[in-house]
Every structure is written in C-alpha cells, then in structure tokens.
C-alpha cells in the first residue's frame, strides 16, 4: 500500500535529480491529474497538454514544494491552474449556457418535486455504469465557473481557500457556486433514478 512517506521518499530522490523517482511520481498521479484536466477542459487533447505542462512545471518547481505538502495535492493544484489558464484563453468564444436546475417549490415555499429512491438495486453494476454516464454528462453541462468549483471541491477535495487562490474568486462566491452546482448534480442523479422507477 502506498503511503505519503513513499511519495516523500520519491520526492527527496527527485529533488536530488533522480529522474526515475520523478517518473514514478508521474506514473502514480497521471490518471487523477488527467481526469481533473479532462473534466475541466472537456477536451482530451487539452487535458493531455495540461497534464504534460503540469508535470513539467512540477519538475521545474520541485524545490518550492514544502516538506509538509503532499506531492499529489500539489500537482493537482498546478494542473487546475494550467486548466484554468487554458479555459480563460478559450473564453474568447463564449458559449450560451442554460440556467442551472433548482428544486421546485410551491407558492408557500414547500418542496413539491418528487424525490427518487437512490438505494442501489439488484442491477447495481449496470446501473453504476449508466449512472456514471449521466453524472459525467451533467458535469459537462454545468456552466464553466460552477464546474470548476464543483470539481475542485467535491472531486479533488481542495479547500475553499486553495480554490480561491487558484481561481482568484472570493470564498463566499465559491461557496455559493458550489451549492448551485451540487443542486444541479443532485437533480441530474435524481432524474436518472426517477426515469428508472
């Protein structure tokens, strides 16, 4: 089983210019870093480029990593930054985004929507695969600023402060977007289960 110590030992070796140690760190973290980049950019080509650039930047700035920092979390933040830069570059052609789904209430403010049963069924495995597709599609449909915050907080487990540092947005703005994004993702999952009832 891998431990943080294993990573820190590899990091020490990589700092001493042991490229094989750095290659091992890349091998360990390339999938989650690529996954984050893919979800953020929604493009395989951009995600591959972000992943390359993130690891190259990590190598060049290895001496800046604090001894109490985990390499994985650090390289994820670099990748998130790289992906955001790419997205800002791409924003020249802005796309029109649909409004985010929100819960439905009556005039007295009471919840009126039907809520599905999310408990796994006997068809759990095939349901998992289909649910995965529905979630993936819903994440891709989130407006960019909401998707970024949702991915960085709920998928990558970054803190609000780390996200604020990366995006340049305020923590209250990030918290508000996260709530809207979670509501939209919850609605997508609920819709998936309702359609199968």
């Amino acid at each position: 089983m891998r431990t943080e110590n294993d990573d820190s030992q590899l990091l020490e070796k990589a700092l001493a210019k042991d490229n094989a140690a750095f290659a091992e760190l890349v091998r360990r973290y390339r999938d989650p870093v690529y996954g984050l980049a893919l979800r953020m950019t929604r493009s395989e080509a951009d995600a591959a480029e972000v992943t390359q650039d993130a690891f190259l930047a990590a190598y060049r700035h290895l001496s800046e990593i604090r001894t109490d920092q985990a390499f994985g979390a650090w390289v994820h933040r670099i990748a998130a930054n790289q992906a955001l830069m790419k997205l800002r570059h791409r924003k020249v052609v802005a796309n029109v985004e649909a409004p985010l789904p929100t819960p439905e209430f009556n005039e007295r403010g009471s919840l009126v929507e039907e809520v599905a049963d999310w408990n796994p069924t006997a068809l759990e495995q095939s349901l998992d695969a289909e649910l995965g597709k529905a979630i993936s599609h819903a994440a891709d449909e989130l407006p960019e600023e909401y998707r970024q915050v949702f991915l960085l907080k709920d998928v990558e487990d970054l803190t609000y402060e780390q996200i604020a540092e990366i995006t340049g947005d305020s923590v209250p703005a990030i918290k508000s977007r996260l709530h809207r994004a979670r509501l939209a993702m919850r609605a997508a999952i609920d819709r998936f289960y309702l359609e199968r009832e």
Partner: protein
Amino acid sequence: MNTCKDTLELLRGYLDGDLKPDERTALEKHLGACSPCVDFLNQYKRTPSLCKKALAAKMPRELADQLDAFLKKHLANE
C-alpha cells in the same frame, strides 16, 4: 418557521458548519417536521461521493506513452 426553500438554501452552510446558531436551530426544526427535506438533504450529502466515483478517469495508454516521451525529452534538457 423556515420553509423548504429557506432550508434547502442553507444546506451547504449546514454541512460545512458555517451557519449561525439561530439559523442552524431553525433548519433543524424544519428538518424534524419535513421528511421530503430530510430525503433531499441525504441526497445532497451523497452527491459529491457519487460524482467523485463517476468522474474518475484513466489516462488512455497512448496519451500516457506520449506523456512519458514528452517528460523524458524535456527532463533530459533541464
């Protein structure tokens, strides 16, 4: 008393422990009397873990090989 709408608006703050004591009390009072909101809260809580599992991606082999080649080339010149 809080409505469902008021309650659902505060869910993130509730789960993060960000609410003021009176907001938390009002929310919990509403939850104590509203099972649809309890169901909604449970779904809201489960959403991140379901998404984390679903959004995990593996780098395609071809791209992983390209990454290796790219880094080998650049690291040799550093």
